[in-house]
């Protein structure tokens, strides 16, 4: 650990380019949120600035706390997560028929977002010690992450529970679980698809059907997909320019500042703008993996695997959805979408990862 008062040394060790890219993405998000909502005043931009501030504070707090200490807490935190999810299911106020929100005073929090971070930590600790080289251990891992995944599926929040699955797979892959297991899992997943279909709620089925064929239900679920695709496509190569998007301004796009923020961005900044955003995310992944490679702590490596999977799945879903390549699930585009819970969870994870940089000078444990 670096001693106190050695700020220059800290700045020498942590990954500043990574932080810079995150800030650029956040600013692009603010610009897009402004464009999507400025007719309704500044409230969304103001709130997102406050969310950013909270996220920055939590980044610093978790950085100072250190990822190692948090690994020791992770099982305890995971237990807490399960408790909160169960409580939400039974006590939660069902807004629009779902139990996602926890109300703390004026704030509405989504515990399932913090859960993504906790799951990464828990799996990293578990897999670093136990590994996943036998079917029995693999089942243990699935039982572990499946508990929270199923609870979130019951909320019901299909999108987030899939993220939990992706995080689990990312961690398994990163910890060196044998490749043959992945082939078996892939086959099992394909076989289980029809079964899963029967568990889905009507609106979820509708979204997936509409995704497969948007013209099937242009009145309801398919309408958003068609309109979002028009928004993205009409952005063309160079975009219509800042504040010049018509799809979002005329309210053809639903929830332009959250679910469909990429649609708004791509309409105004075109293919060039979209490429820049994708490149920034690629850079982010590269730097995260670089930290993991340099770290000598196996737990940090697995954690970084889970974290990067989580981030890129969000990007894939959010961008894919905006052109109708993925069903509408409402996952946030990291750092850019309006909303606090997701931003804060990702920033905290980033803070933890950066804290691992401080351990480079140390030897293998």
């Amino acid at each position: 650990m670096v001693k106190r008062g050695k700020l220059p040394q800290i700045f020498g060790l942590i990954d500043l380019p990574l932080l810079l890219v995150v800030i650029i993405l956040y600013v692009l998000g603010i610009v897009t949120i402004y464009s999507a909502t400025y007719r309704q005043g500044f409230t969304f931009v103001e709130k997102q600035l406050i969310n950013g501030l909270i996220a920055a504070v939590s980044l610093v707090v978790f950085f100072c706390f250190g990822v190692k200490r948090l690994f020791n807490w992770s099982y305890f935190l995971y237990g807490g997560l399960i408790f909160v999810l169960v409580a939400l299911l039974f006590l939660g106020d069902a807004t629009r028929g779902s139990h996602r929100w926890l109300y703390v005073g004026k704030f509405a929090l989504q515990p399932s977002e913090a859960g993504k971070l906790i799951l990464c930590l828990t799996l990293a600790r578990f897999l670093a010690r136990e590994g996943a080289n036998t079917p029995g251990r693999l089942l243990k891992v699935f039982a572990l992450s499946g508990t929270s995944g199923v609870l979130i599926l019951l909320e019901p929040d299909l999108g987030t529970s899939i993220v939990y699955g992706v995080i689990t797979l990312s961690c398994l892959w990163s910890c060196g679980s044998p490749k043959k297991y992945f082939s078996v899992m892939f086959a099992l997943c394909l076989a289980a698809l029809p079964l899963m279909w029967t568990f889905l709620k009507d609106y979820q089925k509708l979204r997936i059907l509409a995704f497969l064929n948007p013209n099937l239900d242009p009145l309801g679920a398919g309408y958003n997909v068609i309109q979002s695709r028009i928004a993205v496509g009409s952005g063309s190569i160079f975009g219509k320019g800042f504040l010049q998007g018509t799809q979002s301004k005329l309210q053809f796009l639903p929830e332009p500042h959250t679910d469909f923020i990429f649609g708004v961005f791509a309409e105004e900044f075109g293919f060039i703008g979209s490429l820049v955003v994708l490149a920034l995310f690629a850079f982010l992944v590269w730097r995260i993996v670089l930290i993991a490679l340099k770290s000598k702590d196996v737990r940090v490596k697995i954690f970084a695997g889970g974290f990067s999977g989580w981030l890129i799945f969000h990007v894939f879903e959010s961008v894919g959805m905006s052109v109708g390549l993925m069903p509408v699930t409402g996952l946030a585009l990291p750092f850019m979408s309006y909303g606090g819970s997701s931003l804060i969870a990702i920033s905290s994870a980033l803070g933890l990862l950066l804290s691992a940089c401080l351990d480079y000078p140390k030897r293998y444990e």
Partner: protein
Amino acid sequence: MKRLDRPIIIDKRLSSWMYLLFGTLILLAVALFQFQVLHGDDYVRLATENRLRVIRLTPQRGTIYDANQIPLAVSLRTFSIQGYPLAIQEDETIERIASFFERHGITKTPEELKEMLKGQYTVPYRSVALVNNLTLAQMASIVADPDFPQELVPVSQWRRVYPAGDVVAHVVGYIGSINKEELKKYGSEGYQGGDEIGKAGVEAEFEKVLRGQPGGEAIEVDSRGRLVRKLDQKQPKQGENVSLTIDLIAQQKVSTLMEDQRGAVVVMDIHNGDVVVLYSTPSYDPNPMVWGLRDFEWKALTQDTSYPMMNRAISGLYSPASTFKIVAAISGLSEGVITQNTKLYCPGYLEVGNRRFRCIKWHGTENVVGALRDSCNVFFFQLGLKLGIDVLSEWAYKLGFGRITGIPLPGEVPGNLAGRKWKKTVLGEAWYLGDTANYVIGQGFVLVTPIQLARAYASIANGGFLPKPRLLKTDAVDGEYISVNEEVLSVVRRGLEQVVKAGTGRSAGRYGVEIAGKTGTAQTSRNKNDALFVGYAPAASPKYVAVVLLEEGESGGRKVAPLAGEILAFLLNERGE
């Protein structure tokens, strides 16, 4: 696996993982290239025209029938002319439309049309109604006109009509356009702006059953807003009909008998809780509520000091007066404080503390049957003081007072059971013996609704079953059993029979049906009394219980008892199966 190998394997895995994630991002870039570069021009064209339009097809709302299949609320087909804000917002178009309407006798100035566009606007692809409530003939002539503006769409609609008007208004209720708060609350159930929703009565309570499923049509239009083709259509699903337990003919009779007095009438089947008559007066006509009242009309209705919008039968709070004496009678007999032979002396008044509580007159010694017959206050003062307020209010609760009956109508109030705890928390005072004296004769703090009285007396008549009032024939019979001795109830029933045979309610017995019941006169201010009669008939084998209440109705015996008698006689003699 050896310990040192593991980080190396993991590092390899991390590198391959990174390339997989890069691959994902490249996949996205390729997809975006296809949409934004290869097909960019197509989407630019689609965006500038945005050709998709959505029309809402409203379902026919279920009909509400009375017990004999007479319709109380029906939906009739009418027509409306709708348009899309995007297509008609320009001044020139609006003026053209206004002059077209003018020729067909619909006077709407361009300014009014603009106002309507603005008022209903949610999203540009959702149509707004410009003219509503057209008949088929009007619609035919408008659409047949070669000048019919291409931007407009004829749509068929439903209009709610209440044939019985103000006779059952408080039961049936009415519907109206969904407002912002309701939209927020029910938006997830598929409502949108411009939809109609039940606002009061059965229309509100059974909204889910009556409403049906709205459908829609998605159409593609050309750049001038003309229909090119239908993309999708979903037929609306008709709402379900409901049949009420209300007998419209009896309700009509009651409404005639009540004339323009203020009050409420409840008639209920004592066995299954079927509400046959539920009348509150003054009433209102629900029909204009549906078309949309003007501001001043709405104000006149809601600010009327006689509260025509209030359903007095379930939301009106009244002192039960002497009709409440059954509570003391039942608890006294059940708790063993008195027997049917216990006689108490009435000198015409009773001193409680330093206050003198008066009786109607000198009654001498009375037992409980006689005290009910003569409505002797002093007998019940003494009984009440022996029982104490705690026992009394406990029995009042058992008989259904101080809580809602569960009648399936919005706006029911629980009344006020009163008691020590209530007085301490609300008034911050201790409970005095004088309060008990007032309580036992149904004056003072205790407040009840007419439907509660009907239920309590039904339980006396049927042997201890407190039915939940039923409005829908298809609902199961529901209720609770009071743990009370049948002998106790038979003593009380004898008292109630005596009331009509030889006591204060004799005038109820003039209509050829044997009635048992109790009168009540509640003093509300110096010269004003609320008058009540609660009774059931036929006395020997009861079928119906009736509550008649008149605000400022002189006394229970004089004006109200005969009304109750006539209503019960009408139901038993002329409305029997």
